[in-house]
């Protein structure tokens, strides 16, 4: 089971990295979203996998049966999902603003903070 997930995660990361290597900020953004999903799956797999039984203690029992899924990675992923969603939202709006302010989504043309061919600093004293 972990094997399938490991390979699947490899595909997620490969796709995410490929998208993030793009020049276009929108594609980078898509890459980041996929990257986040890859990380979540990775955390999920890290806690080992079990099928179907959610970690909810059935009525009448005091503890969780051993067959249930590992709740800790789920809790960690919940935290991570919300965080990565927040960042995704922020970046999305930032990209949008970037497009508005800078007039481009091509990162090669975003040279306002670090302009091309700046003059040399003064060489005198």
């Amino acid at each position, binding site marked *: 089971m972990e094997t399938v997930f490991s390979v699947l995660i490899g595909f997620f990361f490969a796709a995410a990295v490929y998208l993030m290597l793009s020049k276009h900020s929108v594609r980078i953004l898509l890459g980041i979203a996929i990257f986040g999903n890859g990380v979540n799956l990775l955390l999920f797999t890290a806690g080992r996998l079990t099928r179907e039984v959610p970690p*909810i203690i059935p009525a009448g029992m005091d503890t969780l049966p051993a067959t249930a899924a590992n709740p800790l990675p789920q809790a960690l992923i*919940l935290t991570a999902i919300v965080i990565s969603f927040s960042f995704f939202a922020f970046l999305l709006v930032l990209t949008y603003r970037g497009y508005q302010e800078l007039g481009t989504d091509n990162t090669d043309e975003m040279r306002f903070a670090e302009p091309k061919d700046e003059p040399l600093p003064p060489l005198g004293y």
Partner: protein
Amino acid sequence: MNTVILRTVAPPITALMLVFSVFVLLRGHNEPGGGFIGGLIAASALAIYGIAHGVAAVRLAIRFHPMAIAGFGLLLATLSGFVSIFAGVPFMTGLWIYPSLFGVEVPLATVISFDIGVYFVVVGAIAGIALTLEGREED
């Protein structure tokens, strides 16, 4: 999207979703659910209402600025963590009391108020983002 149908069905759907979100929030401790999901559902509800009836209507309806609601949620959650200082136990220790209300024993706990805090933060912040983005359409 601003169709008549949406305008008509939006209020009942929003109301339903809000009630459902509270339900999800409260049952979260024992069943799937909780503050996050509840908050997300409620925020979606407000977003739908916003799409149907305009951002101004939502802002009017919720009275407080969404970010103020989120701030309140964070305040509530943090204070829930600090209540335990009075019990002489560490930060965020869950404290439970069972006051009797009209003969029914009602469990109240700092973990529940914490989860409610989470709910408010998510509602406020996500609705705030959605409304801000929707607001742009009207510029």
